[in-house]
């Protein structure tokens, strides 16, 4: 099952602290949405409002067109996968996964068939009798996913589900998560602070900061054509280009930026002569620090192809391409 989600002018106050400030978002049915932002930006608060664990100070939540504000978590077509997984430690994996169906009054035989199906989906059917503490972190994460999906939610909410895993496992789980989402077709709303994770799995990224939406769109748009300076910085490294060099956006309050991979020997903006001060090897590219010749010259970070590296101290002419003009963050 799947449904669209619509958030209308959501505000959330905690005492005098404004956790969410006028959030308006629309998610399509079956979309994989990632809420991205630094800790404290309000992304988890927004997820809890969607799940029904928190009633917003004002605003509306619609799922599949139905107003959810007066609906308790258990009656919402959402399930949440918690950051600490909250697997019930005294129950076997099968009982954990079958819990939601048990609460819906399904008999043991039926719900165990469904639980085994779900465990099979996440590749843990052979461990159905085990207790959660016998599993590794990645396996627990899969059980939590199976448990949340077993009740066939229209929207699945994931609160930093990969945060506790080490980097390699995280990258692997991202792919699995995406594959499972494609298979079940449920709308996924996934919270993370890892922008690489966001780009790897999202159909749409929502960048948040200080309780506001900074940017929203497909990963390519958010990365290559960010709407704000904050969003641009959060998605990756950024070089600031002095306003005089480019003739983009004549307004004085705009900043011209370019990603390190868009700095190099060619491009439409001439940055001037620069000296290579240091470089490090990253497998597929060299990360180079250049400084414009002359007093107080500006620094640039460039990612150059591995076969195209100047010598240390060598002076080259630097160009920038695909630069974007950004407003200062509001």
């Amino acid at each position, binding site marked *: 099952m799947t449904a669209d989600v619509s958030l209308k002018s959501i505000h959330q106050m905690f005492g005098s602290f404004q956790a969410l400030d006028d959030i308006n978002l629309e998610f399509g049915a079956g979309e994989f949405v990632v809420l991205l932002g630094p800790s404290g930006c309000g992304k988890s608060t927004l997820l809890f409002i969607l799940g029904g664990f928190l009633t917003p100070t004002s605003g509306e939540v619609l799922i599949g067109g139905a107003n959810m504000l007066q609906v308790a978590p*258990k009656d919402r077509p959402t399930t949440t996968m*918690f950051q*600490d997984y909250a697997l019930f*430690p*005294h129950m076997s994996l099968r009982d954990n996964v079958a*819990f939601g169906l048990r*609460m819906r009054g399904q008999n043991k035989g039926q719900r165990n068939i469904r639980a085994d199906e779900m465990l099979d989906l996440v590749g843990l059917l052979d461990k159905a009798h085990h207790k959660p503490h016998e599993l590794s972190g990645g396996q627990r994460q899969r059980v939590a996913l199976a448990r949340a999906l077993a009740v066939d939610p229209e929207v699945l909410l994931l609160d930093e589900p990969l945060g506790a895993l080490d980097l390699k496992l995280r990258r692997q789980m991202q792919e699995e998560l995406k594959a499972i989402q494609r298979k079940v077709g449920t709308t996924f709303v996934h919270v993370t602070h890892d922008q690489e994770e966001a780009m790897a799995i999202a159909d749409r990224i929502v960048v948040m900061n200080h309780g506001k939406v900074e940017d929203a769109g497909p990963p390519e748009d958010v990365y290559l054509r960010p709407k704000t300076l904050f969003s641009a910085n959060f998605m990756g490294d950024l070089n600031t280009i002095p306003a005089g060099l480019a003739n983009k956006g004549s307004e004085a309050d705009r900043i011209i930026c370019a990603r390190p991979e868009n700095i190099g020997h060619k491009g439409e903006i001439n940055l001037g002569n620069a000296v290579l001060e240091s470089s490090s090897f990253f497998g597929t590219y060299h990360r180079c620090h250049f400084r414009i010749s002359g007093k107080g010259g500006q620094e640039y970070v460039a990612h150059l192809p591995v076969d195209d590296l100047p010598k240390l101290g060598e002076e080259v002419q630097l160009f920038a391409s695909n630069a974007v003009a950004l407003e200062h963050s509001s």
Partner: protein
Amino acid sequence: MSIEQQEKRRALGFVAPALLWTCAFFLVPFAVMVLLSLAHLEGREIIQSYDLGNYLKIFTEPSLFKGIVVSLEITLIVTIISVLLAWPLAWIIATQVPEKYQRLAIMLAVLPFWTSYVVRSYSWALVLGQQGVLMQMLMGIGFLDEPIQIMATRGATVIGFVHFFVMLLTLTIYSNLIQLSPNYARAAADLGASGWNTFRLVILPLTLPGIMTGAFLTFVLCIGDYITPQILGGNNELTMPQLIMLQLGRRGDFPMASALSVILMLLVTLAYAATARWLKMERV
């Protein structure tokens, strides 16, 4: 000698004094007591006979055997009532009281711990006596016409014990409850569980370690306590500790007192065996 061996020897040196102390003043006395329980008294003389005469006597003489029954009954009643009273209190403090006042609430809930144990039993004697506050109050509101006897009954002993152990259990259950992630209850509710099912299937099983730790402590302390039954329960029915003190005081019958102590010890061991799977003592 390798560095590991040196380390081990040094560590052993650190542990040795504590081990020696425990052996000399706990294990050895306990062994001596077990041996003594196999002796008997002739006149005022202790004769070692290595037989089970004392134990036989305990199980055949009604006045002694009744002590075991009375002690077990009181202890079980106290443990059950205390758990039933303490769990809701711990839960209310952990979930309903605002976080910044929780520490205060818990400190208040255990404040009477800081009265002396003897004085606490004495205070209940003041409250429960014929002329005490409780009777005066009940008669004042017209609930009773004349005072009823609570002091020197099992009821008084149970009230005194429950008072102490409600505080203790509130502490153990509360510290268990606040360690639980709030996400357990959220997850259960999210998956469709009603409040009652969330409690029955998730929260209660998760607090079993806290309940069992507290219940075991209650059992050990309650069944071995002399003060509360002596001050509040009087001499109508004697618990095992009262019987032990009676053997020591009246006749200096150390062998019989030892035999009763060994049985007390066995009961505690049984209680441990019954609750061990929930206790976290092996982690200590």
